[in-house]
């Protein structure tokens, strides 16, 4: 079920009413409702996928018990942790990466002169959001193993934690220590939390339906027909893709966090205005935070993190960026994209500037950013946007061809929208959006934090107006990150 669908528009109030009015008195019933609602939400795509979630839930619930039971026997505890890793990564590997590895294997042999006919590739449907919920369940087993958490004996609560529908298919990837604790305890309805949830939902819809969906046809057109366009259009295409993917994913996240708030649950922030990052390290502290945090806790730190000497630290950085790239999809373009980010991150790390901006934002104490900050933001945005050529292209060769054309066909031609729409509308939209995000840059969870009620009301109306002005019923309304 998509957030931006009529189904969800009807589904959400029904679940809300049942949750707060019918099952209010019993935490267990509330959690059971969360499970049923989540399974309906997920099964709306294909009910067969539910078996995967159920399997993942059962596996980690029991594995965690075994890890805990054997907490004094390190070897046995580790054995059970590996059971969880192998099963979860195995599921992910089979559904997401099986054909990719087979094809890569065949291609590798072909480059050495051995032609192997690929007879092992299978027709596999990629279950929506599999990378998100397998990582979430694995985090539970990790936390038990590292003794950061006691395993829950409440299977209903655990199943609700794994399947919690607002963040099931595209995160934020929650850690059990945050979400499971909330699911295990009684929730109380508060006006402030619920109204802030609605605000986030509205803002998320704006980002998705106005920014992402209206730019999608332009980006698709430019990337699909890049051989017909000059450098100016190709640069435009990838810049707009930067805004599209941000609007799409952060829009989803805002709706997810807002929806969770309506049920008395606080999810972690996943985006903190990454377009205003002043270096790559800050960018990764602001973009897809839940995934970066996951990799930091469960991969980077176990590998030694940055406490193992410069060379090993660099190795660790490379590993997490390459794995993070691969996490995004079964294509070498994502691995290359991850590698490129590692290359951009390492100099910042070596200069010791990777934590420089971790607790402040651009224009921290002033209305306007300094010229240095503007330069830093533009440079970071350009580097990130450049890397997205690999993220968006169907193959590495296509990405290089795209870059080659930018470099060699350097001329300007006005771009004509595939549907003939006035491009100025979209430039104004991006400009206004960026300015507004700058205004609210200090709090990603309060997009309408203005003192006067009338101002807020006007903003709500303008946001809905924006949705109407840029609504296109012909556009594919799915979310980009669902494929991951």
């Amino acid at each position, binding site marked *: 079920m998509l957030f931006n*669908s*009529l*189904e969800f528009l009807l589904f959400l109030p029904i679940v809300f009413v049942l949750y*707060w009015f019918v099952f209010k008195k019993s935490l267990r019933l509330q959690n059971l409702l969360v499970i049923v609602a989540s399974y309906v939400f997920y099964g709306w795509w294909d009910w067969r996928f539910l078996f995967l979630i159920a399997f993942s839930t059962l596996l980690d619930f029991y594995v965690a018990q075994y890890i805990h039971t054997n907490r004094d026997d390190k070897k046995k505890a580790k054995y059970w942790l590996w059971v969880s890793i192998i099963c979860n990564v195995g599921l992910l590997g089979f559904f997401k990466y099986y054909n990719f590895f087979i094809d890569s294997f065949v291609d590798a042999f072909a480059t050495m002169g051995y032609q192997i006919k690929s007879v092992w590739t299978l027709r596999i449907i990629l279950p929506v959001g599999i990378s998100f919920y397998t990582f979430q369940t694995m985090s539970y087993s990790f936390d038990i193993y590292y003794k950061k958490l006691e395993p829950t004996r409440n299977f209903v609560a655990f199943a609700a934690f794994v399947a919690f529908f607002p963040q099931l298919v595209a995160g934020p990837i929650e850690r059990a220590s945050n979400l499971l604790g909330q699911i295990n305890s009684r929730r109380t*309805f508060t*006006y402030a939390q*619920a*109204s802030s949830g*609605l605000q986030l939902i509205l803002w998320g819809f704006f980002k998705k339906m106005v920014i992402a969906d209206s730019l999608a046809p332009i980006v698709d057109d430019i990337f699909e027909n890049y051989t017909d366009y000059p450098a100016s259009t190709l640069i435009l295409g990838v810049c707009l893709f930067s805004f599209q993917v941000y609007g799409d994913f952060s829009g989803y996240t805002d709706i997810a966090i807002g929806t969770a708030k309506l049920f008395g649950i606080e999810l972690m922030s996943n985006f903190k205005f990454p377009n205003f990052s002043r270096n790559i390290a800050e960018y990764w502290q602001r973009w897809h935070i839940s995934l970066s945090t996951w990799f930091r806790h469960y991969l980077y730190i176990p590998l030694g993190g940055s406490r193992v000497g410069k060379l090993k630290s660099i190795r660790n950085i490379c590993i997490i960026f390459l794995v993070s790239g691969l996490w995004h999809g079964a294509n070498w373009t994502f691995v290359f994209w991850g590698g490129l980010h590692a290359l951009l991150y390492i100099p910042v790390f070596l200069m010791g500037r990777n934590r420089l901006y971790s607790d402040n934002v651009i224009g921290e104490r002033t209305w306007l950013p300094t010229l240095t900050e503007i330069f830093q933001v533009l440079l970071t945005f350009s580097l990130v946007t450049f890397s997205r050529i690999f993220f968006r292209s169907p193959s590495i060769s296509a990405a290089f061809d795209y870059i080659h054309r930018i470099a060699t066909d350097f001329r300007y031609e006005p771009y004509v929208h595939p*549907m*003939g*729409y*006035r491009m100025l*509308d979209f430039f104004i939209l991006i400009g206004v959006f960026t300015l507004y995000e700058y205004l609210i840059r200090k709090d990603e969870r309060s997009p309408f934090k203005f003192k006067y009620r009338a101002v807020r*009301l*006007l903003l*709500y*109306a303008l946001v*809905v*107006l924006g949705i*109407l*002005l*840029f*609504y*296109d*019923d012909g556009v594919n309304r799915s979310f980009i990150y669902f494929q991951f």
Partner: protein
Amino acid sequence: MKKFLLKSVLYIFLILLLLEGIVRALHLYTEDPPRFIDEYGVEKRVPEHTGYAVTGNRNQNFSEFHINKAGFNSHREFEPSKDKFEVALIGDSFIEGFHQDYTSSTAIRIEEKIPGIEVYKYGYAGYDFANQIHLVHAYRKDFELIDEIILYLNYENDLGRGQYEPNRARIDMLSSTLFKIRDNIKLLAYGSKIGIIEPLKKLAQGGNAFANTEGAYQTNTLSEEDEEAKKSAEDDKRIANFKRLIDFYGLDKSKTALLLDSRKTSPRFLDFLDENGIRYIDFAQSFATSKVSTNLIYDRHWNAHGRELISEEIADYIKSVRK
């Protein structure tokens, strides 16, 4: 919870109120002048309405219309007489021309090319050939005075029936309270125009708004012979409908011509017209060779250039018959 629910309802109401104001102020909604069926059974607009037809979410195409006393969107009143040379141009939305300012219509362009003539544009969205020929018959007193009649025929769409029956169900539906509410709440009219309330509308009408129509039914691939047979059967049906209508209402071949695009018209039908001495104006060539687009961006109606080409074709034809 009570505060939350009450405030949510209040905020939704205030937001909708604000939006209604903005939509009105920016004229984002389109106006659809009321329709009716007159005493002759002709479906048309209620006379003497002016307003603006709007296409696209952001006023991408904004044009003024004026419904004259006869009930059609036109810059002039229809007052045929023996002293003047009048041309009647009859057709669907392409002729009605809500996608253009009424002061820049095909009719005006023809008049500019042939000084002294008057062009009466009997256009109405949804008119097929049955509507058109019935109209000529119903207003025969006027049409006896009109010197040339041009019927715009979209071959694939306009010959689906061989008998005229006014669409009373549509008129009843459009004059129902529900539609009146929709037309008066401009936000609703706007939402309806851009398709955002389409799923809700389907749901309200009892349809399955969630149905995925793709794959919900099976389609068989037709072989080339089957395709040919199907096409031939459709041609038979359309030609039979055409014959039936002209037999019933009559067609004054001496002053009537069809305006058509031969690229979208069956050669069999064109042969039929030739064999029966029915004249037609074919704009296929001028559209096909045009280096500039002939259609609007936001819908498929003719743009200013398309209308210019059409008016040239019609003007040339009129000049040739006037000789």
